[in-house]
């Protein structure tokens, strides 16, 4: 598996697109900036909903109202993130494809995406779903805390790709 990934990364590095991204100096900083701005939108939307669940933010508003306002569109921004992220990988494949920090980041992204859907979906049918019992309250608070931790860790892992060597 690792050998295949290495071969893939080395092939990717020889493609015309990769060479363009490597050689035109403004492309990587610009794509990274778009990537960070999109991360800001997604992470703030999710954090505000999580903080509301924990009772820290906008307590006067129902969880469902905030969830509907902030969560449905994050998937489009995540699509942009997948595109900008892919461009960054194509530009520096040997740095990221077999980088443990990158693998961890993707694993956490998939996990937290599922958690976000777990929080949001029940609210579409029943706005008071998470307030219905003490057990559900505890469950959603746990989901919110795990979500906050995972999103923070995703930002850390993203930055650490630059500092951890590929294997």
């Amino acid at each position, binding site marked *: 598996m690792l050998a295949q990934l290495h071969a893939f990364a080395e092939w990717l590095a020889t493609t015309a697109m990769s060479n363009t991204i490597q050689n035109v100096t403004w492309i990587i900083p610009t794509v990274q900036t778009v990537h960070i701005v999109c991360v800001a939108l997604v*992470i703030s939307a999710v954090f505000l909903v999580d903080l509301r669940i924990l009772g820290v933010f906008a307590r006067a508003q129902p969880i469902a109202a905030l969830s509907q306002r902030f969560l449905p569109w994050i998937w489009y921004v995540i699509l942009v993130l997948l595109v900008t992220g892919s461009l960054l990988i194509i530009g520096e494949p040997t740095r990221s494809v077999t980088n443990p920090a990158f693998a961890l980041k993707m694993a956490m992204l998939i996990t937290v995406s599922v958690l976000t859907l777990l929080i949001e979906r029940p609210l579409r049918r029943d706005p008071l779903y998470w307030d219905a019992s003490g057990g559900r309250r505890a469950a959603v608070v746990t989901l919110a805390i795990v979500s906050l931790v995972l999103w923070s860790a995703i930002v850390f892992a993203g930055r650490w790709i630059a500092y951890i060597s590929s294997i």
Partner: protein
Amino acid sequence: MIDAFCQWLHDTAWAETIRANELLFPTFESLHVLAITLVLGSIAVVDLRLLGFTSRNRPVTQLIREVLPVTWTAFAVAVVSGGTLFASNAVEYAHNFPFQMKMLLMLLAGLNMVVFHLVTYRGIGQWDAALRPPPAARAAGAISISLWIGIVAFGRWIGFTIGF
């Protein structure tokens, strides 16, 4: 004088600690990025409302009251973590063009905020719930979001111009 201050900052024990331990710089850098994403994202919530694009069913004053504590908390973390990164290599950062631009844009973002609060905000009673706030408020939102995106761009650019 600025150079003397930066040199003193560079020579502090705290800055020396950051330079001596190779795990500390990326850790503070990650914390800085996390804080900035929350500053930018939470400010965008207000700016996009001022522009009349999102949260249109929410009065502006309420939205600002709710979001601002999140923004200021994240901003405080960004200043402390950013200050730590700066101290580790203060003289070089102070002479770095993208860094200087970043500071300038932050100053402008601050001025924009002051003008909004002292002038535009005073008449907010008339347009608090308006779907489309008046031109001055929309301008404040557009200027703010543009400046903050510029701050992120110049911040990222610093990393490509300063070598360790």
